[in-house]
Structures are given as C-alpha cells and as structure tokens.
C-alpha cells in the first residue's frame, strides 16, 4: 500500500517542493496551509506521517502537535518538524513533544523523502 503524508506549511514553495519530493518517492501527499486545517485533515485521512513547519499562521507547530497527541485518532502519527531554528531552545521545544523529530532547513532534496520514510514505524 502507498504511504501517505500530510504537509502543513503556509509557505507555498516549501509545500510544493516537499510534496513533489515525497510524490516522486511514492507517497500520497495531503497539504494544509494552517494548523487548524491540518488537524482536521489529519483526523480525516490518518496519514502515516505529518511534516510540519514550526511557525504557522494560526498557532505554533508545537501547539498543533499537542492537539494531535490529545486526539486518539491522531496520537500515533509521528510528526516531523522542518525548522531552521536548530538553536538549543528550538530543539528543546521539539524534544518535549513525544512522537516528534526535526529536519533542519534547508532540506536536502536528495535525502528528504528517505529521511521522512525512516520516521514512519
């Protein structure tokens, strides 16, 4: 069966690039441009993995991840944060969330899909 991924990012270019890379690697990809939309889509589609930006227009990515964790339909889905702020505090914020990992920005287009695949159990 095809693997499914949900990308939540308000930057259209990031969304398109990540979607293309995952589709080429054989994923079925859903996209959302804000956290609320993304959470609804996650409940509806139950993707294998969620790729999310930390800075979203309606809330921080970490808050969205907590909402997903609190919902039993989505609490098993791993979350990958794509973030430039690989500073100590940013890492702590992600480490505090169970089920979450991060990929540093800029993404490596040659390894992105493979890296994302590794995080699916």
């Amino acid at each position, binding site marked *: 069966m095809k693997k499914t991924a949900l990308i939540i990012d308000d*930057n259209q*270019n*990031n969304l398109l*690039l990540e979607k*293309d*890379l995952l589709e*080429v690697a054989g994923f079925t990809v859903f996209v959302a441009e804000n956290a609320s939309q993304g959470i609804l889509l996650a409940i509806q589609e139950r993707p294998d993995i969620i790729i999310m930006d930390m800075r979203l227009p309606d809330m921080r990515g970490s808050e969205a991840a907590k909402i997903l964790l609190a919902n039993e339909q989505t609490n098993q889905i791993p979350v990958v944060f794509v973030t*430039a702020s690989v500073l*100590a505090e940013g890492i702590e914020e992600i480490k505090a969330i169970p089920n979450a990992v991060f990929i540093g*920005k*800029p*993404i490596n*287009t*040659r390894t992105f899909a493979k890296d994302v695949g590794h995080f699916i159990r």
Partner: protein
Amino acid sequence: MDCQPRKAYLLSRPSLGEGSTPKTKSVTSSQEYSESIINTIREPLIALDQDLRVVSVSRSFYEVFKVKPEQTVGQLIYDLGNKQWDIPQLRELLETILPEQATFDNYEVEHDFATIGRRIMLLNARQIQRVHGKERIILLAIEDITERREIETGLEKAHDELEALATELKRTARAKSEFLANMSHELRTPLNSINGFSEVLFDETFGPLNEKQRKYVSNVLASGKHLLALINQILDMAKVESGKMKLQLSTISTRGILDEVAMLVADLAGKKQIEMTLEIAHDLPDIEADELKVREIIYNLLSNAVKFTPVAGRIGLRAVESSGQIEVSVWDSGVGIATENMERIFEGFFRVDTPYSRLTEGTGLGLPLARKLVELHGGHLAIESKGLDQGTLVKFQLPISVSQEA
C-alpha cells in the same frame, strides 16, 4: 567645603592669645596682626562690627567684587557697591541666625551682582567677642563656588547623558540582533526555495535538461549556495559581535578534526594540482572547544590557502602543542598579502583585487570570522606574509581548556 571651619579657626587665633600676642598687648598691635592674617587669605573676608558696618576687608574682597576701599570701610554691609549686597539671605544669616548660633558654616547664597553677575557663594561666619570692650565683631568669609558648581552640574549632566547613551546603545544592539535574526529568516526562506527547486531541476527528477539548461541551473544553484553562505556568515559575525554566539563545549579530538577537514580540502587542492603537507603532532592533545566552530575555523583557513595559491603551488597544515595550548599554522606559497592590506583583510568583505579574487568564489568573511571564533575560545589568531606573491602564514592558538567565561 570642610576647609571653611579651618579658616575661621585661624582667624580666631588672636583671641586665643597665642604666641607673640599676649592679651596685655595694645589693641593696635592685635589689629595689625589680624589684618595681616585677613590679607593673607586668598578668599574674600569681611570683618563687621556689631552694627554690621565694615571694619576691614581682605585684599581679595576688593579684587573679587570689584569695589574700592573708600566705598567699603565704614559702610553698612547691605549698602556696599551701590546696595548690591542687600541680599535677603544675607540679612537672614546676619540678623537672625548668627545672633543665636555665633558661628555659621557653608551657608549657600546665590545672588546677581550688578558688577560681576550671578554668583553662588558659600558663607562662613563667626561672631567674636573683642579682647577689649564688650562689642562683638563678625567675621564673614566668602567662597565663590560659582565655577565649581558649574563643573559639578556639568559633570552630573554629562553623567546623565552617558547613562542615557548607554541605555540607547543597549537598545540599539538588541534591535540590531533582532533585525538580523528576522532578516536572516526572511532572506533564507525564499533562498531555500531557489536552491531547493534548482537542485531538483539539476537532478533531472522530472525529466532531462539539455546542456545549456543544465549549465544555467547549475549556475543558479552555485550562486544560491554562495548567497546562503554569505547570509549565514553575516549572521554569525553579528552573533559574535553582539555576544550572542554561544559555544557548545565538549572535549574534541583535535587530531581527528584536523585530518577530516584536511581530507575535505584535499579535494579542492587536487583540482588545482596543489600539494598539501600535513604535520600534525602525534601527541597533540584533545581540547575543550566547540567542535563545529573549530571545524569552521580550520576549513576557512585551509580553503583560503587553496583559493589564494596558484595552480601547482603548495599549502600546508602544522599543529603542535605549545605551553598549555595547541598551535595550528596554515601556510601557502600563494599570492601573499601586501603590508598595507594586513589589517584590512580582517574588516570583512575586503578582498584584495588580484587575478585570483575574480576567479575565486568567496565571501571575504572567512578570515575575520575565523579570528572571531578563535578569540571566542580565548585563543589568538595572527597572519604573516612577507608581501605580495610571498605566500601567507596564518597561525592560531586555542587553549586546551577554555576558561569558563560567559
């Protein structure tokens, strides 16, 4: 200010009957004695009788207040110099306070004199019983503190201004850091898209490109990566300068890191048939440092050596332990540095215009950033060159253990 009472003490000596002026001597002799004392004193002094008429004044009184003896002696103090001395505060001092207390120190009076303008004075007064007779005399010493007060006020003002300036500087530095952090995010986001899409195109993920297209996309990608390196280095410089660059210290294998970075650069050197010599001491100790920063320092220096050395030249890396530090030297047989450019190369964005500078891609920030990173570790970086085309030697020391400083 505490010198005032001392002066009053001196003046009262005759009445204490000290030395050559026993109480039995004539009034005249005692008066001469006191007048000579009065005239010795630099500051204006007035002796008044109990009706507040001037008995005598010191020489300096005439000089400071620009009055003549004939207009002074025998006059009521308030009438002096065309009633210039009719000062309400002085009346209070002489008529109310002095009769009750007999002495008065450092009484501040501000008054606008017709002849000499606005002055601030400190008045010290003593009421003294004459040796003979029952009348009293009043000694009034006047210290003009107008200038001192102006200096004090000026100092206070300068201090306040400095404080305001320091606050403003801190605010500006914070604003600058915030601006740079935001700017770097805003610049990197679109740049990451440019680089990401060009990379996918270059890899022909969605279909083949012709030769021209491949070449152009490759140029877009190279320029994009160069721009990203620039932005990252500018941000690093700004972080170091604003004290926000924090070192992630751990014990690092110095030998291992030098070998690894040299391997990376060997590839670049090979393309220009440059011979690289490595002399890393076998007993080179591990050091406490930020591994990524140390790699960056060495990479910047070695890649500079390759960039500024012509084809078939030589470069080298030498590392030894030296009195509690490790000393790393990166040398090359390249273009060297003219003496007049020796300091400018640390300014940032300064690239000497040589045939190589046009050929080599660089930010001009590699060396200044390397020096800042070395200094952040408590080390020192220096550069030597005998001149143009004489090669370059960059030498830096890093302490084996970084002293804990914020």
